[in-house]
């Protein structure tokens, strides 16, 4: 069973907080915020991301939930840089919609992020007054923010921190003041980070922070941005998807990683390059992706759990080896942290456009499971599950993550590794080793697998079609039986209901489906729609392929209309489902190419429209009787 948060119907309660204010318990009458989105942009040297991380850590320490996404220009150094931080008193699953607070260290860089940092009528805009722009002249066309506040950020930084490199610390002070978060924690964090740099530097940083804080206190906001207390403050983890994937691999028993660097997946390799040795494992930075997955195939043949990770171009190169692993029936996990495609595409931005490839890139008749995590936190159970499926079914398993999930930082519930169930590959018994037959036709299609070092288990693995003993064959009937064995063995996997998040009224006529990094958005939209009174139900597959016909058929049974939400151009999940399931005609698609934001509000709107159309349709139907 998939260990994790959102199994079966256990969907977290609606984030009631979304865009809804509560009252300040201290000074009743003043609304306090439960859910805020902050966006900040500047140039690469401005320490934007580290500011975002400080804020998230501080909030997490106080018991808040949060999601931090980062976005950069193509430059390695000196280009534009930004973060988006959503802080919430309850669990959040997406980076949210428009910004509540926007911070522009300079306008040129801020504008480069376009729709990624959306400013709306409810936004408070803060900018460095050194940009010499009047508050009513800020270069945002077509919007009138709630409030626009120039702050002499650079000036304060120079005066207190001694250099403009303290600008991010000043902003931390401002945020801390206006949000009421992390006074102690930010300072403590700064101290820790700068410990080696000496007391003088620390002192300056503290000064800069306090100056920001002071400015905030002296300039209260028109729209109050004080955060309410977190609902149930517990100890938190702060995770990012790539790191957590690597850590989960270690917990799952992974002893070998082979791969080749590629954005936005490299952190998985970096993490394992630091950590895997401690657990007796080995990390190999190979000469290319083919060699990386080749070494993984080898390690698996040698009896070890093994993984590789890459992004689109690397996936394309790994195609042949993945096919080999399928026919040789060797377990392995392959993570694709998707980015904008095709080809080199947009390396630094997420997209969900490699689903077709994940399912169908191999030549020949092949099934290999494809899983997708819905959040960074979800990377843990999904990675564990990927290893379990790989070992159980003796197959490559693909994890379809993406830049969004892979590189974002999130608060997460503490993980209890002991609660995880780990599956090991089925090895031949002593008796079976007496007359070992590697590819024996069994009822399940799964045959016990030996490995070098195991006496009596000697066999020939190959990419050539083979008989039960592994001997090459060109016989059509044997080929047919082996294909059948290799495909049929996945039948039980299609029965696994715990790999789906299902929520809502069983007989709702309106359906919402999404996957991977957009699933969080859809889940929030689902709860929004529920609060708006829509009769909607939700389906989020974490198992994308093979397609579990039954799960979808049951889901669709009551559905007249609905929406599939995904971050690609061709509605790839929607198309994939149609291959195996009778998808109701009323299902529409909300599909956007990568780095074009999809927001919960937008999805909920679309659902509302669909629901209205459905009602109109019903009324037009002649009444019965």
């Amino acid at each position, binding site marked *: 069973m998939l260990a994790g948060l959102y199994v079966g119907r256990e969907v977290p309660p609606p984030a009631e907080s979304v865009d809804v204010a509560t009252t300040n318990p201290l000074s009743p009458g003043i609304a306090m915020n439960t859910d805020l989105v902050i966006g900040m942009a500047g140039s690469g040297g401005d320490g934007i991301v580290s500011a975002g991380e400080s804020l998230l850590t501080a909030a997490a320490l106080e018991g808040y939930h949060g999601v931090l996404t980062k976005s950069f220009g193509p430059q390695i150094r000196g280009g534009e840089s930004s973060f988006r931080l959503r802080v919430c008193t309850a669990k959040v699953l997406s980076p949210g919609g428009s910004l509540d607070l926007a911070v522009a260290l300079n306008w040129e860089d801020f504008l480069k992020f376009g729709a990624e940092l959306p400013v709306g009528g409810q936004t408070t805009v803060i900018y460095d007054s050194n940009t010499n722009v009047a508050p009513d002249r800020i270069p945002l066309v077509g919007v009138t923010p709630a409030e626009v506040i120039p702050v002499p950020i650079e000036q304060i930084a120079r005066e207190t921190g001694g250099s403009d490199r303290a600008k991010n610390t000043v902003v931390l002070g401002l945020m801390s003041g206006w949000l009421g978060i992390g006074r102690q924690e930010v300072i*403590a964090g700064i101290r820790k980070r700068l410990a080696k740099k000496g007391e003088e530097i620390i002192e300056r940083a503290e000064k800069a922070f306090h100056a920001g804080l002071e400015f905030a206190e002296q300039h209260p906001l028109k729209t109050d941005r004080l955060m309410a207390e977190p609902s149930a403050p517990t100890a938190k983890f702060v995770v990012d998807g790539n790191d957590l994937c690597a850590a989960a691999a270690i*917990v799952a028993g992974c002893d070998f990683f082979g791969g080749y660097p590629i954005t936005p997946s490299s952190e998985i390799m970096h993490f394992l390059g630091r950590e895997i040795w*401690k657990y007796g494992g*080995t990390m190999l930075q190979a000469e290319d992706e083919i060699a*990386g997955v080749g070494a993984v195939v080898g*390690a698996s043949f040698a009896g070890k759990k093994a993984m590789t990770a890459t992004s689109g171009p690397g996936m394309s190169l790994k195609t042949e080896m993945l096919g080999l692993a399928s026919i040789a029936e060797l377990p392995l996990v392959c993570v694709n942290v998707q980015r904008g495609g095709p080809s080199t595409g947009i390396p630094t931005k997420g997209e969900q456009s490699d689903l077709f490839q994940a399912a169908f890139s191999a030549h020949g008749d092949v099934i290999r499971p494809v899983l997708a995590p819905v959040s960074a936190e979800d990377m843990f159970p999904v990675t564990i599950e990927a290893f379990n499926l790989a070992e159980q079914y003796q197959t490559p398993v693909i994890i379809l993550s993406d830049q969004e999930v892979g590189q974002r930082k999130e608060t997460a519930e503490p993980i209890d590794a002991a609660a995880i169930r780990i599956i090991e590959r089925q090895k031949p018994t002593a008796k079976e080793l007496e007359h070992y037959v590697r590819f024996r036709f069994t009822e399940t299609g799964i045959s016990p697998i030996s490995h070098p070092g195991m006496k009596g288990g000697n066999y020939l693995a190959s990419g050539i079609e083979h008989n039960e003993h592994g001997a090459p064959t060109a016989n059509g009937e044997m080929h047919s039986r082996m294909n059948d064995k290799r495909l049929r063995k996945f039948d039980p996997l299609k029965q696994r209901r715990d790999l789906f998040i299902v929520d809502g009224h069983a007989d709702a006529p309106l359906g919402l489906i999404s996957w991977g990094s957009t699933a969080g958005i859809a889940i929030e939209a689902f709860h929004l729609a529920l609060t708006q009174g829509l009769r909607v139900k939700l389906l989020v597959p974490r198992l994308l392929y093979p397609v579990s016909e039954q799960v979808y058929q049951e889901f669709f049974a009551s559905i007249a209309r609905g929406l599939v939400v995904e971050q690609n151009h061709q509605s790839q999940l929607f198309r994939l489902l149609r291959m195996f399931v009778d998808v109701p005609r009323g299902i529409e698609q909300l599909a956007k190419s990568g780095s074009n934001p999809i927001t919960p509000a937008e999805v909920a709107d679309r659902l509302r429209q669909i629901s209205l159309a459905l009602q109109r349709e019903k009324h037009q139907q002649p009444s019965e009787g």
Partner: protein
Amino acid sequence: MSTLSARPVEDYTAKDYKSDLKPIWCPGCGDFGVVQAIYRALANVGRPPHEIAFISGIGCSSRIPGYTTAYGFNSVHGRSLPIAQGIKLANPDLLVLCAGGDGDGFSIGGGHVAHAIRRNIDITYIVMDNQIYGLTKGQLSPTSRRGLATVSSAHGAMESPVNPLLYVLGYGAEFVAQGTPADMNGLAKIIEEGIRYPGFAFINVQSPCVTYGQEDQMLKAQKATLQTLESLSHNPADRLAAMDLAQAYGEKLYTGVFFRHAKPGPTFERLARERQDAQRSTVKSRADVLNVFRLKKP
């Protein structure tokens, strides 16, 4: 080869390594001799078959693992080395052999050789160099001579051949040898030496393709022309001399050990083990890896 099995050497004979699969090579193919030499070398080394992993790519020559009793892996064209490296790193106690054709190793697989060598992973890599693509019925191989007319080069090859011996010496291989089934004793001996060498060992074998090869590459012609490096009193510790001799590839048939490093360097897997041993003490269980995500009050 890192560790010898506990079992005494004399327990094994060549036929312990011979499988029941009937080779489907053309009668007279040089690869018959190569597999015989491998049986003999393995028997001398004396590791039990189940502690041996034998990896190949695709080609006539790459069928060879199936004809042994070792754990075999007849993988995909050109990728035997990456797979073999994964196996050796996953379990350094195994004896890992790798074999394939000239095309498998120096055309499609050519990008992997340098890296296996610079990592110095203890694998013995045997290339059955017949200067032709046998399995696909006679196209140019990277070691085919300039001007050769084949099904894929009706008007003659326009490129110079690769020089496997010189390449691997340039890559820094610590053990480089050449043999031929025209001298079975010599061949079995260098394969055994390659296996015993504690690091990556490269062995080029002039294994004739009787179906698509040239007359002067057949065993008979080879017997007439081969010169052992011993007979030239070549000093195998001398890398530059080895490179000089290697230049004659394609013109002269030298057999024996071109180069054997006097002081074998560390293997990747040894360094990895040292690293593991050094780091292991810092953790108690796999769950400890999750500690990095734990927030601590600063």
